[in-house]
C-alpha cells in the first residue's frame, strides 16, 4: 500500500515536471509570461481568400471570459512581431511589427530588420494604422494600405480547440485515454488578436518561408 502510494507520487511528480504548465497551445506556457500582455496563445499562417496573399495571425492574452473581454487591452509597451525567414537559415530576413498606441494598432514592415534575435526596435516607418475594434462592435474595423496589406486588431473568439482537461487527466495518470466526444476547453473564450494579410510578392520568397511569432517588452 505504502509502496503503491509512493509509486503514484513519483508518477505524478514526473508528469508534473513535464506537464506542469501544459496548458494548451502556447497559452500560459511559461511562468514569466503568465497573465501578461506578452503571453502568446497561437500563431497561424495561411492563404488569404485571395491566394496571392498570405495571412498572419497573432493571438495573445488567452482564456478571456466574455465578462473579462471588454476590459482586455493591448499594451503600448508590448511589441508583437512576426519573424519571417525566407532563405532557410531560421534567422529573420523580414519582420512585420505591430504596436499599440492611443486606441490604434500601428504596423511596420514587412522590412529587413536592422538587428536580428531577441532584442528589437521598430523598423522603418508606419505602413498603416487601424483603430482597435471594440468588444461588442457589429463588424471588425480593418484598414488596407496602398501596397495592399490588410490589418486588424481587437478581441476575437479563440480559434484553438482542445480537450485540455482530459489531457491533464491523462498526464496525471487519472485517465488512460480521451473521451468521445471530447470537450473543448477553449469553447466560449476570447483572445486579443492581430491579423495581417500581405501580398506574397512582398515576402521575397522562393516558395517556402519559416515563421515565428514573438512578443517583446519595452526596455525600462
Amino acid at each position, binding site marked *: 500500500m505504502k509502496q503503491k502510494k509512493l509509486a503514484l507520487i513519483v508518477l505524478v511528480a514526473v508528469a508534473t*515536471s*513535464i*506537464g506542469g504548465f501544459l496548458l494548451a*497551445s502556447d497559452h500560459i*506556457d*511559461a*511562468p*514569466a*509570461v503568465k497573465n*501578461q500582455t*506578452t*503571453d502568446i496563445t*497561437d*500563431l497561424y*499562417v*495561411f*492563404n*488569404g*481568400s485571395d491566394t496571392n496573399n*498570405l495571412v498572419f*495571425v497573432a493571438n495573445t492574452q488567452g482564456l*478571456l471570459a466574455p465578462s473579462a473581454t471588454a476590459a482586455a487591452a493591448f499594451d503600448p509597451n508590448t511589441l508583437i512581431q512576426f519573424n519571417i525567414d525566407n532563405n532557410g537559415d*531560421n*534567422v529573420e530576413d523580414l519582420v512585420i511589427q505591430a504596436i499599440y498606441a492611443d486606441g490604434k494598432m500601428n504596423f511596420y514592415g514587412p522590412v529587413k530588420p536592422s538587428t*536580428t*534575435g*531577441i532584442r*528589437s526596435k*521598430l523598423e522603418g516607418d508606419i505602413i498603416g494604422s487601424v483603430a482597435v475594434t471594440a468588444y461588442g462592435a457589429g463588424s*471588425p474595423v*480593418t484598414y488596407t494600405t496602398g501596397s495592399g496589406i*490588410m490589418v486588424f486588431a481587437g*478581441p*476575437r*473568439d479563440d*480559434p*484553438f*480547440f482542445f*480537450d485540455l482537461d*482530459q489531457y491533464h487527466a491523462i498526464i496525471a495518470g487519472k485517465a*488512460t485515454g480521451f473521451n468521445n*466526444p*471530447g470537450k*473543448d476547453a*477553449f469553447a466560449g473564450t476570447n483572445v486579443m*488578436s492581430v*491579423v495581417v*494579410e500581405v501580398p506574397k510578392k512582398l*515576402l521575397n520568397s522562393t*516558395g*517556402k*518561408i*519559416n*515563421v*515565428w*511569432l*514573438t*512578443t*517583446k*517588452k519595452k526596455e525600462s
Partner: protein
Amino acid sequence: MEKHYTVKFIAVSVLLTLGVIGCSKNNNHNPSPTPTIYYDQADQVGRPAINTVFIPASGKDSFNTTSPSQMPSIFTNDMKTSLMSLNPGYTTNLLGLTADQFISVLSTDVLNASTTGVTSFYNGTQVLTGRTLSDDVIDVELTLLFGGPDGSANPGLTSDHVNGNDKTFLTSFPYEASPW
C-alpha cells in the same frame, strides 16, 4: 553723434535678431537625439504546443527567449527525454521519423509555410505548409507522438475528439470569428 547712436542701435538689433534666429535654427537642426527604444523578447511560438509539451518546467522561460536558430543545441536532449517519457514505446511515426529525426524537426520551433501552394499543418498530403484556423493540430501532434509508424497505435491517445472550433470562421478578412 545722434547718427552714430542710431547706427549702433541698428547694429545691436541686427546682431540680437541674428542671434535669436541662430539659436532657433540651431535647435531645429540639432535636436537633442531621441534615444532608440529597444524591446526584449518575452514569448515566442512557431508550431503549436512545442514549449508546453516538450520543454521541462525549468526551461520554459529560457525557451521563449532563445532564437530558433539557437534552439537545437540547447534543447534537443530535453525534448528527446520528454518524447520518450510521454511515449516510452516510441519507434517511428506516421512521417517515418525516428525519435532523433522527429526531435530534430521540432527543436527549431518555426512554422513552415508554403508561398506557392496549399497551406495546411497536415492534411494527408501537405505536411507543415502552414496552419489554418481550422486545422486540428492537436490530433496531428497526438498522432505523431503516440500513433506509431501507421498512426494506429494507442488509439485512445491519438485524438481528443474535439474536431473543430466552437464558432464558424469568416470567409474574408480578418477570418477569425467575433468574440463571445
